[in-house]
């Protein structure tokens, strides 16, 4: 039997084994107290589920060592694509941080216009028009129809 070159599954298996051990021996004892007099302690199920993750991680790791098992192709993970995703995530975080201060409509129009242009739409006037209409529609749906207050901020 020959060993295959290590693949992502190999490292994922190790990751889950380590995660399981951390959960069972450190995190769960730290965050879940034992209660005297109870037959089934509150830690039991967290530890069972963590142990299950560890066992499955071990199987993933061992499965990867068997010859002929490497039929799975992983997505190509490009640094550029990951950066785009992180950028969208940061935009989301910035939107949440600013919406409470600036207000829903203004923040949403800016975010929608920027994102739509980022996705490659070149007609700026149409982009802004759609952004304004969408922001108003979402506000109407949540605030008027469903009676949920959206952040006002210093604008609207």
């Amino acid at each position: 039997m020959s060993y295959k070159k290590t693949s992502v599954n190999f490292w994922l298996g190790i990751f889950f084994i380590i995660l399981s051990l951390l959960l069972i021996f450190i995190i769960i004892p730290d965050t879940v107290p034992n209660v005297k007099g109870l037959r089934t302690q509150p830690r039991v199920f967290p530890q069972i589920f963590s142990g299950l993750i560890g066992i499955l991680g071990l199987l993933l790791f061992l499965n990867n060592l068997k010859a002929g098992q490497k039929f799975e192709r992983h997505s190509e993970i490009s640094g550029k694509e990951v950066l785009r995703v992180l950028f969208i995530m940061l935009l989301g975080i910035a939107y949440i941080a600013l919406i409470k201060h600036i207000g829903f409509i203004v923040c949403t129009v800016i975010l929608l216009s920027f994102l739509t242009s980022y996705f490659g739409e070149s007609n700026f006037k149409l982009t802004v028009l759609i952004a304004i209409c969408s922001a108003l529609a979402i506000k109407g749906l949540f605030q008027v129809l469903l009676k949920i207050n959206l952040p006002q901020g210093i604008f609207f």
Partner: protein
Amino acid sequence: MIGGILAGLILGFIPGIHATMAIAFVLPITFYLDPITSLLMLMASYKASLFGGSISAILLGTPGTPAAAMTVADGYKLAKEGKGIKALKMALVASVTGDLFSDIVLILVAVPLARFSLKFGPAEITMVIFFSLTMIGVTSGRFLLKGLIAAAIGLLISIIGLDPIIGIPRLSFDNPNLYSGIDLRAILIGLMVMSKIFIFAEKKLVQITTHLPAPKNKEDTRLSLKELSRCLKTLFRSSGIGTLIGAMPGLGPTVAAGIGYKVAKESSKYRNRFGNGELEGIAAAEAANNAVSGANIIPLLVLGVPGDVTAALLMAAFLIQGIQPGPMIFREHPDVIYGIYAGLISANIMLFLIAYPLLKYFAKVASLRVGHIFPVIMVFSIIGAYSSNQNWFDVKVMLFFGMVGYIMEKFKFPVIPLIIAFILGPKLETSFRQYLLISRGNFLVFFASPITIVFGILSILSIIWATRIIGIKSYSKARMKDIKSE
């Protein structure tokens, strides 16, 4: 209901948005509606999104939902011959037929099955949930191990919050926002909607385009009685297949469409035309995939256990409305049950009445600019996650799980087992601990009763079946590789 249908049609039409994503997207709006309206809106959007996926499959050659994948071959071929509207009409008729069939089966069998399930105690419920989880892992296909890992992670996340028996916080890291656990809506929107936005963001996909010829004559836009009657047998058979598959945990519309299509092809006089623009192929796939929608509520209503992610989302909607699904719902909330029955039938009729006149407008869509749509969906998701508790912490959780869903997609971890395990986890723990209290600590729940033994054996068989399939596939691929290298 009309809103749900329109939202489902539009969302299902967009490639990459699954039918279940459409439900997750609509879910925040339903929080503030009464129980019947809320559940019907979700069901209507689900049914409509399954059909919406077919529209995209036929006109753009790209299935809007995975369940519509079987419709592409025949539907898109017909569209390229100028018969797109004919194909759409067949898809609509088949969808509504399949839906109606499974809704009628639901109405007929739910009450008798619920009476039987009243015999289920904590031990039986534990084993039913365990069986559901194994089936869900099994349907991860060749990613079985990863599906089971995702399910185990879902179980672990589900216990964050207060212990259900004694009320002490677990894994909350002294954060009061986590005392009531992770918000279900936040995790659903994150995993099902936000992760898809990240996938589209990485590709920067702006537009999907197709070029279809105009119809040559009126016959190309009509679905004649002769064509319909030729496909009647297939319609009903596929509806039956879809209903049976929908009633079983973990399978879903994609499997139903595949099996319905295959069976129809093998028993059709025109089997050579399947894949080359055969209307019967569209009828088979669409009837089967839509017939899942009514049937997959059966385990939810009868046992209180969702069989797949759609039923899990419906269960979330029930719980949010303060209604516990299960056999007692027929006694405690008969108004809700009969409202749902009537609404399901009406939703099918409404879908037909709304979608039919819109088909000719859909057929004119030559391109779909997704660059405008996804930013709106992102904002809607953020506000949807915020609106549930008006707490920005939920939005952070939603974004976090959006990133988790994206990473899972990249490393081929199926998300659905995680979601279902997250929803079933609390019930699994509660019923198992109740059983331990009753049995004074006897862990052998497997042998508690004949019902538990049956479900235990089914669980073991499902895992063996899945590992054998994986073993056979990997062996044959390895063997092919050896042969090629020799």
